[in-house]
Protein backbone atom coordinates (compact mmCIF):
# COMPACT_ATOMS: atom_id res chain seq x y z
CA UNK A 1 0.00 0.00 0.00
CA UNK A 2 1.22 3.41 -0.87
CA UNK A 3 2.37 5.46 2.04
CA UNK A 4 0.77 8.76 2.86
CA UNK A 5 3.67 10.65 1.38
CA UNK A 6 3.39 8.71 -1.87
CA UNK A 7 -0.32 9.36 -2.01
CA UNK A 8 0.32 13.03 -1.55
CA UNK A 9 2.78 13.04 -4.40
CA UNK A 10 0.31 11.24 -6.65
CA UNK A 11 -2.44 13.62 -5.69
CA UNK A 12 -0.38 16.74 -6.29
CA UNK A 13 0.91 15.55 -9.64
CA UNK A 14 -2.62 14.65 -10.68
CA UNK A 15 -3.72 18.17 -9.84
CA UNK A 16 -0.77 19.64 -11.68
CA UNK A 17 -1.49 17.55 -14.76
CA UNK A 18 -5.15 18.52 -14.69
CA UNK A 19 -4.33 22.20 -14.38
CA UNK A 20 -1.59 22.14 -16.96
CA UNK A 21 -3.63 23.49 -19.91
CA UNK A 22 -4.56 26.48 -17.80
CA UNK A 23 -1.02 27.28 -16.80
CA UNK A 24 0.20 26.90 -20.32
CA UNK A 25 -1.67 29.19 -22.59
CA UNK A 26 0.28 28.02 -25.56
CA UNK A 27 -1.27 25.57 -27.95
CA UNK A 28 2.08 24.52 -29.27
CA UNK A 29 3.34 23.33 -25.91
CA UNK A 30 -0.02 21.81 -25.29
CA UNK A 31 0.40 19.86 -28.50
CA UNK A 32 3.84 18.77 -27.37
CA UNK A 33 2.23 17.60 -24.15
CA UNK A 34 -0.33 15.62 -26.12
CA UNK A 35 2.41 14.00 -28.15
CA UNK A 36 4.16 13.11 -24.91
CA UNK A 37 1.01 11.46 -23.69
CA UNK A 38 0.71 9.54 -26.91
CA UNK A 39 4.28 8.34 -26.66
CA UNK A 40 3.91 7.46 -23.02
CA UNK A 41 1.16 5.06 -24.00
CA UNK A 42 3.26 3.65 -26.81
CA UNK A 43 6.47 3.36 -24.82
CA UNK A 44 4.75 1.97 -21.75
CA UNK A 45 2.94 -0.63 -23.78
CA UNK A 46 6.20 -1.66 -25.40
CA UNK A 47 7.81 -1.76 -22.00
CA UNK A 48 5.16 -4.18 -20.82
CA UNK A 49 6.37 -6.55 -23.51
CA UNK A 50 10.11 -5.93 -23.55
CA UNK A 51 10.66 -4.97 -19.98
CA UNK A 52 8.41 -7.44 -18.25
CA UNK A 53 8.57 -10.66 -20.21
CA UNK A 54 11.91 -10.00 -21.84
CA UNK A 55 10.63 -10.55 -25.34
CA UNK A 56 12.35 -8.06 -27.52
CA UNK A 57 9.76 -6.50 -29.78
CA UNK A 58 11.32 -3.99 -32.16
CA UNK A 59 8.35 -3.62 -34.47
CA UNK A 60 5.88 -1.93 -32.17
CA UNK A 61 5.08 0.63 -34.86
CA UNK A 62 3.23 -2.12 -36.73
CA UNK A 63 0.59 -2.46 -34.02
CA UNK A 64 0.36 1.28 -33.67
CA UNK A 65 -0.23 1.44 -37.42
CA UNK A 66 -2.99 -1.15 -37.27
CA UNK A 67 -4.77 0.81 -34.57
CA UNK A 68 -4.52 4.06 -36.49
CA UNK A 69 -5.75 2.61 -39.76
CA UNK A 70 -8.57 0.68 -38.12
CA UNK A 71 -9.79 3.88 -36.57
CA UNK A 72 -9.29 5.97 -39.69
CA UNK A 73 -11.03 3.55 -42.03
CA UNK A 74 -13.98 2.85 -39.79
CA UNK A 75 -14.42 6.50 -38.91
CA UNK A 76 -14.25 7.89 -42.42
CA UNK A 77 -16.20 5.17 -44.21
CA UNK A 78 -18.59 3.82 -41.65
CA UNK A 79 -18.79 6.76 -39.26
CA UNK A 80 -17.95 4.80 -36.15
CA UNK A 81 -17.61 6.99 -33.12
CA UNK A 82 -14.29 7.77 -31.52
CA UNK A 83 -15.33 6.27 -28.24
CA UNK A 84 -16.24 2.98 -29.81
CA UNK A 85 -13.11 2.97 -31.91
CA UNK A 86 -10.74 3.47 -29.00
CA UNK A 87 -11.25 -0.03 -27.65
CA UNK A 88 -12.01 -1.47 -31.06
CA UNK A 89 -8.70 -0.35 -32.55
CA UNK A 90 -6.97 -1.81 -29.54
CA UNK A 91 -8.78 -5.08 -30.05
CA UNK A 92 -7.91 -5.25 -33.72
CA UNK A 93 -4.24 -4.62 -32.94
CA UNK A 94 -4.42 -7.28 -30.25
CA UNK A 95 -6.00 -9.74 -32.68
CA UNK A 96 -3.06 -9.29 -34.96
CA UNK A 97 -0.75 -9.85 -32.05
CA UNK A 98 -2.48 -13.15 -31.37
CA UNK A 99 -1.80 -14.13 -34.94
CA UNK A 100 1.83 -13.14 -34.62
CA UNK A 101 2.14 -14.58 -31.17
CA UNK A 102 0.74 -17.98 -32.03
CA UNK A 103 3.25 -18.23 -34.80
CA UNK A 104 6.33 -16.71 -33.27
CA UNK A 105 6.24 -16.70 -29.51
CA UNK A 106 8.20 -19.91 -29.42
CA UNK A 107 11.08 -18.14 -31.10
CA UNK A 108 13.79 -16.87 -28.85
CA UNK A 109 15.75 -13.68 -28.59
CA UNK A 110 16.77 -12.12 -31.84
CA UNK A 111 14.61 -14.43 -33.88
CA UNK A 112 11.53 -13.12 -32.18
CA UNK A 113 12.77 -9.56 -32.67
CA UNK A 114 13.30 -10.23 -36.32
CA UNK A 115 9.74 -11.42 -36.82
CA UNK A 116 8.33 -8.36 -35.10
CA UNK A 117 10.47 -6.18 -37.31
CA UNK A 118 9.31 -8.09 -40.37
CA UNK A 119 5.73 -7.84 -39.23
CA UNK A 120 5.98 -4.10 -38.77
CA UNK A 121 7.26 -3.68 -42.31
CA UNK A 122 4.70 -6.08 -43.73
CA UNK A 123 1.93 -4.01 -42.16
CA UNK A 124 3.31 -0.72 -43.43
CA UNK A 125 3.85 -2.08 -46.93
CA UNK A 126 0.44 -3.67 -47.00
CA UNK A 127 -1.05 -0.32 -46.09
CA UNK A 128 0.86 1.20 -48.99
CA UNK A 129 -0.19 -1.50 -51.43
CA UNK A 130 -3.76 -2.18 -50.53
CA UNK A 131 -5.05 1.06 -51.95
CA UNK A 132 -8.69 0.05 -52.16
CA UNK A 133 -8.82 -0.26 -48.39
CA UNK A 134 -6.27 2.23 -47.17
CA UNK A 135 -5.94 4.64 -50.09
CA UNK A 136 -2.36 3.42 -50.26
CA UNK A 137 0.24 6.16 -50.31
CA UNK A 138 -2.43 8.85 -50.44
CA UNK A 139 -3.11 8.47 -46.77
CA UNK A 140 -6.49 8.99 -45.16
CA UNK A 141 -7.47 12.63 -44.68
CA UNK A 142 -10.56 14.08 -43.10
CA UNK A 143 -10.88 11.89 -40.05
CA UNK A 144 -13.75 13.60 -38.21
CA UNK A 145 -13.43 15.16 -34.79
CA UNK A 146 -14.57 13.09 -31.84
CA UNK A 147 -17.93 13.98 -30.41
CA UNK A 148 -19.10 13.96 -26.85
CA UNK A 149 -22.81 14.43 -26.20
CA UNK A 150 -23.19 16.05 -29.58
CA UNK A 151 -20.36 18.43 -28.90
CA UNK A 152 -17.28 18.41 -31.15
CA UNK A 153 -14.01 17.97 -29.36
CA UNK A 154 -11.82 20.18 -31.46
CA UNK A 155 -9.36 21.98 -29.31
CA UNK A 156 -6.03 20.77 -28.11
CA UNK A 157 -7.32 21.05 -24.60
CA UNK A 158 -9.91 18.41 -25.26
CA UNK A 159 -7.34 16.11 -26.74
CA UNK A 160 -5.06 16.79 -23.83
CA UNK A 161 -7.64 15.55 -21.40
CA UNK A 162 -8.45 12.55 -23.53
CA UNK A 163 -4.83 11.50 -23.72
CA UNK A 164 -4.31 12.25 -20.05
CA UNK A 165 -7.19 9.98 -19.18
CA UNK A 166 -5.97 7.24 -21.50
CA UNK A 167 -2.46 7.41 -20.11
CA UNK A 168 -3.77 7.36 -16.58
CA UNK A 169 -6.00 4.38 -17.21
CA UNK A 170 -3.24 2.56 -19.02
CA UNK A 171 -0.67 3.06 -16.30
CA UNK A 172 -3.14 2.29 -13.57
CA UNK A 173 -4.23 -0.98 -15.14
CA UNK A 174 -0.64 -1.91 -15.96
CA UNK A 175 0.40 -1.33 -12.39
CA UNK A 176 -2.40 -3.51 -11.15
CA UNK A 177 -1.58 -6.32 -13.53
CA UNK A 178 2.13 -6.11 -12.84
CA UNK A 179 1.66 -6.44 -9.14
CA UNK A 180 -0.62 -9.43 -9.48
CA UNK A 181 -0.06 -13.08 -10.16
CA UNK A 182 -0.06 -12.32 -13.88
CA UNK A 183 2.70 -9.77 -13.65
CA UNK A 184 4.79 -12.06 -11.49
CA UNK A 185 4.43 -14.77 -14.09
CA UNK A 186 5.61 -12.32 -16.74
CA UNK A 187 8.68 -11.36 -14.77
CA UNK A 188 9.43 -15.00 -14.04
CA UNK A 189 9.36 -15.70 -17.75
CA UNK A 190 11.79 -12.86 -18.29
CA UNK A 191 14.14 -14.19 -15.65
CA UNK A 192 14.12 -17.86 -16.57
CA UNK A 193 11.62 -19.47 -18.82
CA UNK A 194 12.49 -23.05 -17.94
CA UNK A 195 12.16 -22.41 -14.25
CA UNK A 196 8.87 -20.63 -14.82
CA UNK A 197 7.50 -23.65 -16.61
CA UNK A 198 8.67 -25.90 -13.83
CA UNK A 199 6.60 -23.73 -11.50
CA UNK A 200 3.54 -24.47 -13.60
CA UNK A 201 3.46 -21.15 -15.43
CA UNK A 202 2.00 -21.72 -18.88
CA UNK A 203 4.68 -19.59 -20.43
CA UNK A 204 3.25 -19.60 -23.91
CA UNK A 205 -0.14 -18.49 -22.72
CA UNK A 206 1.27 -15.80 -20.49
CA UNK A 207 3.55 -14.47 -23.18
CA UNK A 208 0.53 -14.29 -25.42
CA UNK A 209 -1.50 -12.46 -22.77
CA UNK A 210 1.39 -10.10 -22.39
CA UNK A 211 1.59 -9.43 -26.09
CA UNK A 212 -2.15 -8.92 -26.28
CA UNK A 213 -2.20 -6.50 -23.39
CA UNK A 214 0.77 -4.56 -24.71
CA UNK A 215 -0.37 -4.32 -28.30
CA UNK A 216 -3.91 -3.45 -27.30
CA UNK A 217 -2.59 -0.16 -25.98
CA UNK A 218 -0.53 0.41 -29.09
CA UNK A 219 -3.79 0.08 -31.03
CA UNK A 220 -5.53 2.51 -28.71
CA UNK A 221 -2.68 4.96 -29.19
CA UNK A 222 -3.04 4.57 -32.94
CA UNK A 223 -6.71 5.40 -32.77
CA UNK A 224 -6.04 8.47 -30.67
CA UNK A 225 -3.36 9.62 -33.08
CA UNK A 226 -5.64 9.20 -36.09
CA UNK A 227 -8.36 11.35 -34.57
CA UNK A 228 -5.93 13.86 -33.20
CA UNK A 229 -4.17 14.61 -36.48
CA UNK A 230 -7.17 13.86 -38.68
CA UNK A 231 -4.83 12.76 -41.45
CA UNK A 232 -2.72 9.63 -41.40
CA UNK A 233 -0.40 8.02 -43.86
CA UNK A 234 1.98 5.11 -43.80
CA UNK A 235 4.88 7.56 -43.35
CA UNK A 236 4.07 7.81 -39.68
CA UNK A 237 4.60 4.12 -38.99
CA UNK A 238 8.05 3.38 -40.26
CA UNK A 239 10.61 1.16 -38.58
CA UNK A 240 12.28 4.34 -37.38
CA UNK A 241 9.13 5.22 -35.50
CA UNK A 242 9.31 1.81 -33.85
CA UNK A 243 12.95 2.35 -32.99
CA UNK A 244 12.30 5.70 -31.43
CA UNK A 245 9.60 4.20 -29.23
CA UNK A 246 12.16 1.59 -28.27
CA UNK A 247 14.66 4.32 -27.54
CA UNK A 248 12.17 5.97 -25.20
CA UNK A 249 11.76 2.75 -23.27
CA UNK A 250 15.48 2.19 -22.96
CA UNK A 251 16.50 5.76 -22.22
CA UNK A 252 13.85 5.91 -19.54
CA UNK A 253 14.71 2.50 -18.18
CA UNK A 254 12.79 -0.66 -18.87
CA UNK A 255 11.20 -3.07 -16.50
CA UNK A 256 9.53 -0.45 -14.35
CA UNK A 257 6.49 1.66 -15.00
CA UNK A 258 7.88 5.13 -14.59
CA UNK A 259 10.90 4.67 -16.86
CA UNK A 260 9.11 4.78 -20.20
CA UNK A 261 7.07 7.74 -18.99
CA UNK A 262 10.23 9.71 -18.38
CA UNK A 263 11.84 8.35 -21.52
CA UNK A 264 8.89 9.33 -23.69
CA UNK A 265 8.75 12.78 -22.16
CA UNK A 266 12.43 13.51 -22.53
CA UNK A 267 12.82 12.17 -26.05
CA UNK A 268 9.76 14.12 -27.18
CA UNK A 269 10.81 17.37 -25.58
CA UNK A 270 14.50 17.26 -26.46
CA UNK A 271 14.10 17.64 -30.23
CA UNK A 272 11.76 20.56 -29.58
CA UNK A 273 14.38 22.24 -27.45
CA UNK A 274 16.98 21.73 -30.15
CA UNK A 275 14.70 23.17 -32.82
CA UNK A 276 16.89 26.18 -33.36
CA UNK A 277 19.97 24.18 -34.10
CA UNK A 278 19.02 23.82 -37.78
CA UNK A 279 21.04 21.06 -39.46
CA UNK A 280 22.74 20.18 -36.22
CA UNK A 281 19.47 19.30 -34.57
CA UNK A 282 19.73 15.56 -35.07
CA UNK A 283 23.45 15.54 -34.42
CA UNK A 284 22.77 17.01 -31.03
CA UNK A 285 19.83 14.73 -30.46
CA UNK A 286 22.01 11.69 -31.13
CA UNK A 287 24.68 13.04 -28.82
CA UNK A 288 22.08 13.73 -26.16
CA UNK A 289 20.94 10.12 -26.21
CA UNK A 290 24.53 9.00 -25.78
CA UNK A 291 25.13 11.40 -22.94
CA UNK A 292 21.98 10.35 -21.16
CA UNK A 293 22.96 6.73 -21.11
CA UNK A 294 26.49 7.54 -20.05
CA UNK A 295 25.08 9.43 -17.12
CA UNK A 296 22.41 6.92 -16.27
CA UNK A 297 23.03 3.58 -17.93
CA UNK A 298 20.14 1.91 -16.18
CA UNK A 299 17.79 4.48 -17.68
CA UNK A 300 16.74 7.86 -16.38
CA UNK A 301 14.36 6.20 -13.99
CA UNK A 302 16.10 2.87 -13.82
CA UNK A 303 14.65 0.97 -10.94
CA UNK A 304 16.81 -0.03 -8.05
CA UNK A 305 16.54 -3.62 -9.18
CA UNK A 306 17.82 -2.82 -12.61
CA UNK A 307 20.55 -0.64 -11.31
CA UNK A 308 21.75 -3.53 -9.23
CA UNK A 309 21.66 -5.53 -12.39
CA UNK A 310 23.84 -2.93 -13.95
CA UNK A 311 26.37 -2.75 -11.17
CA UNK A 312 26.62 -6.44 -11.23
CA UNK A 313 30.31 -7.27 -11.39
CA UNK A 314 32.06 -8.72 -14.35
CA UNK A 315 31.34 -12.34 -13.67
CA UNK A 316 27.83 -13.61 -13.42
CA UNK A 317 28.19 -16.00 -10.57
CA UNK A 318 27.48 -19.63 -11.05
CA UNK A 319 25.80 -19.13 -14.34
CA UNK A 320 25.40 -22.46 -16.03
CA UNK A 321 26.96 -23.05 -19.44
CA UNK A 322 23.64 -22.99 -21.17
CA UNK A 323 23.13 -19.41 -20.25
CA UNK A 324 26.47 -18.28 -21.36
CA UNK A 325 25.82 -19.83 -24.70
CA UNK A 326 22.27 -18.84 -25.13
CA UNK A 327 22.07 -15.41 -23.79
CA UNK A 328 25.12 -14.11 -25.52
CA UNK A 329 23.18 -13.73 -28.68
CA UNK A 330 20.06 -11.84 -27.93
CA UNK A 331 19.20 -8.35 -28.91
Amino acid sequence: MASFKQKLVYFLSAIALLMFPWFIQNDYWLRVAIMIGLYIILASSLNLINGYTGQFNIGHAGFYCIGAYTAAILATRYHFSFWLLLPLSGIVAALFSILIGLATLRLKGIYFSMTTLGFSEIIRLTVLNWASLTRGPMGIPGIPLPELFGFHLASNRHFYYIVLALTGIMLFLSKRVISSRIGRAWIAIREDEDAARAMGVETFRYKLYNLIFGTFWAGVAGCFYAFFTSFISADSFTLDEGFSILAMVLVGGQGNLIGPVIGAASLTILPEIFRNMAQLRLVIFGAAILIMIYLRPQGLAGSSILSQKYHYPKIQRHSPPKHQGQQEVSP
Partner: protein
Amino acid sequence: MTAILQTANLSKSFGGLHAVEAVNLEVERGHIHGIIGPNGAGKTTLFNLLTGTYTPSRGEIYFNGLSITRLSPERIARLGIARTFQNIKLFKYMSVLDNVKIGFHTQTETSFWDAFFHTSRFHRDERIAAQKGFEILTRVGLAKHADDLASNLPYGTQRKLEIARALATQPQLLLLDEPAAGMNPAETAELIDFIRKLNQEGLTIIIIEHDMKLIMNLCHRITVIHHGEKIFEGTPVEVQNHPGVIEAYLGKGRLNPSAV
Protein backbone atom coordinates in the same frame (compact mmCIF):
# COMPACT_ATOMS: atom_id res chain seq x y z
CA MET B 1 2.32 -49.28 -0.89
CA THR B 2 1.74 -48.01 -4.37
CA ALA B 3 4.12 -46.52 -6.86
CA ILE B 4 3.70 -42.80 -7.31
CA LEU B 5 5.93 -42.74 -10.36
CA GLN B 6 6.69 -45.39 -12.90
CA THR B 7 8.60 -45.39 -16.12
CA ALA B 8 8.56 -48.07 -18.76
CA ASN B 9 11.41 -48.39 -21.18
CA LEU B 10 12.11 -44.69 -20.95
CA SER B 11 14.74 -43.65 -23.49
CA LYS B 12 16.22 -40.48 -24.82
CA SER B 13 18.91 -40.11 -27.42
CA PHE B 14 20.70 -37.05 -28.72
CA GLY B 15 21.85 -37.75 -32.21
CA GLY B 16 23.69 -41.00 -31.81
CA LEU B 17 24.13 -40.69 -28.07
CA HIS B 18 21.83 -42.77 -25.89
CA ALA B 19 21.68 -40.55 -22.87
CA VAL B 20 18.90 -42.55 -21.25
CA GLU B 21 18.25 -46.08 -22.43
CA ALA B 22 15.24 -48.25 -21.57
CA VAL B 23 15.03 -47.22 -17.94
CA ASN B 24 12.33 -48.83 -15.82
CA LEU B 25 11.95 -46.92 -12.64
CA GLU B 26 9.46 -47.37 -9.88
CA VAL B 27 9.24 -44.94 -7.01
CA GLU B 28 7.14 -45.77 -4.00
CA ARG B 29 4.91 -43.16 -2.47
CA GLY B 30 6.50 -41.75 0.64
CA HIS B 31 9.99 -42.84 -0.23
CA ILE B 32 13.17 -40.95 -0.73
CA HIS B 33 14.57 -42.45 -3.86
CA GLY B 34 18.18 -41.84 -4.78
CA ILE B 35 19.62 -41.77 -8.24
CA ILE B 36 23.34 -42.03 -8.56
CA GLY B 37 25.75 -42.70 -11.34
CA PRO B 38 28.90 -41.36 -12.91
CA ASN B 39 28.99 -37.97 -14.51
CA GLY B 40 27.23 -38.03 -17.81
CA ALA B 41 25.33 -41.17 -16.92
CA GLY B 42 22.02 -39.54 -17.81
CA LYS B 43 20.63 -38.62 -14.41
CA THR B 44 19.77 -35.05 -15.21
CA THR B 45 18.42 -36.15 -18.54
CA LEU B 46 16.15 -38.53 -16.70
CA PHE B 47 14.83 -35.65 -14.59
CA ASN B 48 14.32 -33.60 -17.70
CA LEU B 49 12.24 -36.41 -19.12
CA LEU B 50 10.19 -36.80 -15.98
CA THR B 51 9.38 -33.11 -15.87
CA GLY B 52 8.60 -32.75 -19.56
CA THR B 53 11.60 -30.58 -20.39
CA TYR B 54 12.64 -33.24 -22.88
CA THR B 55 10.25 -35.48 -24.72
CA PRO B 56 11.27 -39.13 -24.60
CA SER B 57 12.47 -40.86 -27.72
CA ARG B 58 10.71 -43.97 -26.50
CA GLY B 59 8.92 -45.26 -23.45
CA GLU B 60 6.24 -44.10 -21.06
CA ILE B 61 6.00 -42.24 -17.79
CA TYR B 62 3.16 -42.74 -15.33
CA PHE B 63 2.42 -40.48 -12.43
CA ASN B 64 -0.20 -41.77 -10.02
CA GLY B 65 -1.06 -44.30 -12.66
CA LEU B 66 -1.72 -41.70 -15.35
CA SER B 67 0.49 -41.33 -18.37
CA ILE B 68 2.28 -37.99 -18.42
CA THR B 69 4.61 -38.96 -21.19
CA ARG B 70 4.17 -36.11 -23.60
CA LEU B 71 2.84 -33.41 -21.35
CA SER B 72 4.44 -30.00 -21.18
CA PRO B 73 6.52 -29.03 -18.14
CA GLU B 74 3.82 -26.72 -16.86
CA ARG B 75 1.14 -29.41 -17.06
CA ILE B 76 3.35 -31.79 -15.19
CA ALA B 77 4.09 -29.16 -12.57
CA ARG B 78 0.36 -28.67 -12.13
CA LEU B 79 -0.11 -32.39 -11.62
CA GLY B 80 2.21 -32.20 -8.64
CA ILE B 81 5.80 -32.77 -9.66
CA ALA B 82 8.23 -30.07 -8.67
CA ARG B 83 11.95 -29.90 -9.25
CA THR B 84 15.15 -28.05 -8.64
CA PHE B 85 17.84 -27.63 -11.25
CA GLN B 86 21.41 -28.78 -11.27
CA ASN B 87 22.40 -25.36 -12.57
CA ILE B 88 20.47 -23.13 -10.26
CA LYS B 89 17.70 -21.38 -12.13
CA LEU B 90 16.33 -18.73 -9.86
CA PHE B 91 14.47 -15.64 -10.95
CA LYS B 92 17.55 -13.61 -10.34
CA TYR B 93 16.24 -10.10 -10.27
CA MET B 94 13.15 -10.85 -8.27
CA SER B 95 13.06 -10.73 -4.52
CA VAL B 96 13.35 -13.93 -2.56
CA LEU B 97 9.71 -13.74 -1.52
CA ASP B 98 8.56 -13.11 -5.08
CA ASN B 99 10.50 -16.16 -6.19
CA VAL B 100 8.46 -18.24 -3.82
CA LYS B 101 5.23 -16.49 -4.75
CA ILE B 102 5.62 -17.76 -8.31
CA GLY B 103 5.34 -21.20 -6.81
CA PHE B 104 1.73 -20.42 -5.96
CA HIS B 105 0.93 -19.77 -9.56
CA THR B 106 -0.92 -23.02 -9.94
CA GLN B 107 -2.98 -22.51 -6.83
CA THR B 108 -4.20 -19.03 -7.59
CA GLU B 109 -6.46 -17.82 -10.35
CA THR B 110 -6.38 -14.07 -10.54
CA SER B 111 -7.47 -13.03 -14.02
CA PHE B 112 -6.90 -9.70 -15.73
CA TRP B 113 -10.32 -8.69 -14.57
CA ASP B 114 -9.49 -9.49 -10.94
CA ALA B 115 -6.23 -7.62 -11.21
CA PHE B 116 -7.82 -4.55 -12.80
CA PHE B 117 -10.52 -4.20 -10.21
CA HIS B 118 -8.85 -5.78 -7.20
CA THR B 119 -11.71 -8.19 -6.72
CA SER B 120 -11.98 -10.38 -3.69
CA ARG B 121 -10.36 -13.16 -5.62
CA PHE B 122 -7.33 -10.98 -6.20
CA HIS B 123 -7.06 -10.19 -2.52
CA ARG B 124 -7.48 -13.81 -1.58
CA ASP B 125 -4.78 -14.91 -4.01
CA GLU B 126 -2.35 -12.28 -2.86
CA ARG B 127 -2.96 -13.23 0.72
CA ILE B 128 -2.30 -16.89 -0.03
CA ALA B 129 0.89 -16.12 -1.87
CA ALA B 130 2.24 -13.73 0.71
CA GLN B 131 1.30 -15.68 3.81
CA LYS B 132 2.17 -19.14 2.66
CA GLY B 133 5.21 -17.86 0.87
CA PHE B 134 6.47 -16.39 4.06
CA GLU B 135 5.70 -19.57 5.94
CA ILE B 136 7.79 -21.55 3.54
CA LEU B 137 10.65 -19.09 3.78
CA THR B 138 10.51 -19.33 7.51
CA ARG B 139 10.65 -23.07 7.27
CA VAL B 140 13.81 -23.08 5.22
CA GLY B 141 15.28 -20.28 7.29
CA LEU B 142 15.21 -17.63 4.62
CA ALA B 143 12.65 -15.31 6.15
CA LYS B 144 15.24 -12.69 6.93
CA HIS B 145 16.21 -12.58 3.27
CA ALA B 146 12.63 -12.17 2.03
CA ASP B 147 13.24 -8.79 0.41
CA ASP B 148 16.73 -9.47 -0.91
CA LEU B 149 17.38 -9.98 -4.55
CA ALA B 150 17.69 -13.69 -5.24
CA SER B 151 20.92 -13.23 -7.17
CA ASN B 152 22.61 -11.65 -4.17
CA LEU B 153 22.29 -14.75 -2.04
CA PRO B 154 25.29 -16.99 -1.56
CA TYR B 155 25.31 -20.14 -3.60
CA GLY B 156 24.22 -22.55 -0.92
CA THR B 157 21.38 -20.29 0.09
CA GLN B 158 20.27 -20.06 -3.50
CA ARG B 159 19.91 -23.83 -3.47
CA LYS B 160 17.68 -23.60 -0.44
CA LEU B 161 15.59 -20.98 -2.14
CA GLU B 162 15.16 -23.27 -5.12
CA ILE B 163 13.80 -25.95 -2.84
CA ALA B 164 11.52 -23.46 -1.14
CA ARG B 165 10.20 -22.32 -4.48
CA ALA B 166 9.55 -25.91 -5.52
CA LEU B 167 7.72 -26.56 -2.26
CA ALA B 168 5.43 -23.65 -2.91
CA THR B 169 3.83 -25.52 -5.78
CA GLN B 170 2.67 -28.01 -3.13
CA PRO B 171 3.96 -31.03 -4.97
CA GLN B 172 3.40 -34.68 -4.24
CA LEU B 173 6.73 -35.52 -5.74
CA LEU B 174 9.87 -33.44 -5.47
CA LEU B 175 12.88 -33.95 -7.71
CA LEU B 176 16.16 -32.62 -6.38
CA ASP B 177 19.15 -32.45 -8.70
CA GLU B 178 22.37 -32.32 -6.66
CA PRO B 179 21.00 -30.18 -3.85
CA ALA B 180 24.17 -30.44 -1.79
CA ALA B 181 26.57 -29.40 -4.52
CA GLY B 182 28.71 -26.55 -3.26
CA MET B 183 27.78 -27.06 0.35
CA ASN B 184 30.27 -27.87 3.04
CA PRO B 185 29.72 -30.88 5.26
CA ALA B 186 28.09 -28.88 8.03
CA GLU B 187 25.63 -27.36 5.63
CA THR B 188 25.03 -30.71 4.03
CA ALA B 189 24.13 -32.17 7.37
CA GLU B 190 21.58 -29.44 7.84
CA LEU B 191 20.18 -30.16 4.40
CA ILE B 192 19.86 -33.84 5.23
CA ASP B 193 17.74 -33.04 8.23
CA PHE B 194 15.59 -30.74 6.21
CA ILE B 195 14.96 -33.26 3.46
CA ARG B 196 14.15 -35.91 5.97
CA LYS B 197 11.63 -33.64 7.61
CA LEU B 198 9.94 -32.96 4.31
CA ASN B 199 9.71 -36.65 3.67
CA GLN B 200 8.24 -37.28 7.07
CA GLU B 201 5.54 -34.77 6.24
CA GLY B 202 4.54 -37.05 3.41
CA LEU B 203 6.43 -35.77 0.43
CA THR B 204 7.92 -38.28 -1.97
CA ILE B 205 11.39 -37.24 -3.10
CA ILE B 206 13.73 -38.34 -5.84
CA ILE B 207 17.22 -37.09 -5.35
CA ILE B 208 20.31 -37.03 -7.52
CA GLU B 209 23.49 -36.52 -5.58
CA HIS B 210 27.16 -37.28 -5.67
CA ASP B 211 27.51 -36.75 -1.95
CA MET B 212 27.37 -40.32 -0.70
CA LYS B 213 26.86 -39.34 2.86
CA LEU B 214 23.65 -37.65 1.96
CA ILE B 215 22.47 -40.42 -0.33
CA MET B 216 23.26 -43.23 2.02
CA ASN B 217 21.76 -41.44 4.98
CA LEU B 218 18.51 -40.52 3.38
CA CYS B 219 17.44 -42.91 0.70
CA HIS B 220 15.09 -45.79 1.04
CA ARG B 221 16.07 -47.10 -2.31
CA ILE B 222 18.76 -46.18 -4.79
CA THR B 223 18.89 -46.60 -8.53
CA VAL B 224 22.29 -46.64 -10.16
CA ILE B 225 22.55 -45.44 -13.71
CA HIS B 226 25.49 -45.94 -15.98
CA HIS B 227 25.70 -45.03 -19.65
CA GLY B 228 22.01 -44.25 -19.59
CA GLU B 229 21.04 -47.68 -18.36
CA LYS B 230 19.91 -48.80 -14.97
CA ILE B 231 22.64 -51.11 -13.74
CA PHE B 232 21.40 -51.73 -10.26
CA GLU B 233 18.72 -50.92 -7.79
CA GLY B 234 18.57 -51.63 -4.14
CA THR B 235 18.90 -50.37 -0.59
CA PRO B 236 21.86 -48.25 0.41
CA VAL B 237 23.62 -51.18 1.92
CA GLU B 238 23.17 -53.28 -1.18
CA VAL B 239 24.41 -50.48 -3.37
CA GLN B 240 27.52 -49.89 -1.34
CA ASN B 241 28.52 -53.49 -1.56
CA HIS B 242 27.75 -54.04 -5.20
CA PRO B 243 31.05 -54.55 -7.00
CA GLY B 244 29.79 -53.10 -10.29
CA VAL B 245 28.70 -49.90 -8.57
CA ILE B 246 31.95 -49.61 -6.72
CA GLU B 247 33.91 -49.97 -9.88
CA ALA B 248 31.85 -47.61 -11.98
CA TYR B 249 31.02 -45.03 -9.42
CA LEU B 250 32.10 -45.17 -5.85
CA GLY B 251 35.75 -45.85 -6.37
CA LYS B 252 38.09 -47.41 -3.89
CA GLY B 253 37.16 -44.93 -1.22
CA ARG B 254 40.79 -44.36 -0.45
CA LEU B 255 40.61 -40.64 -0.71
CA ASN B 256 36.92 -40.47 -0.23
CA PRO B 257 36.09 -40.41 3.40
CA SER B 258 32.77 -38.67 2.89
CA ALA B 259 31.31 -41.92 1.58
CA VAL B 260 29.97 -43.58 4.65
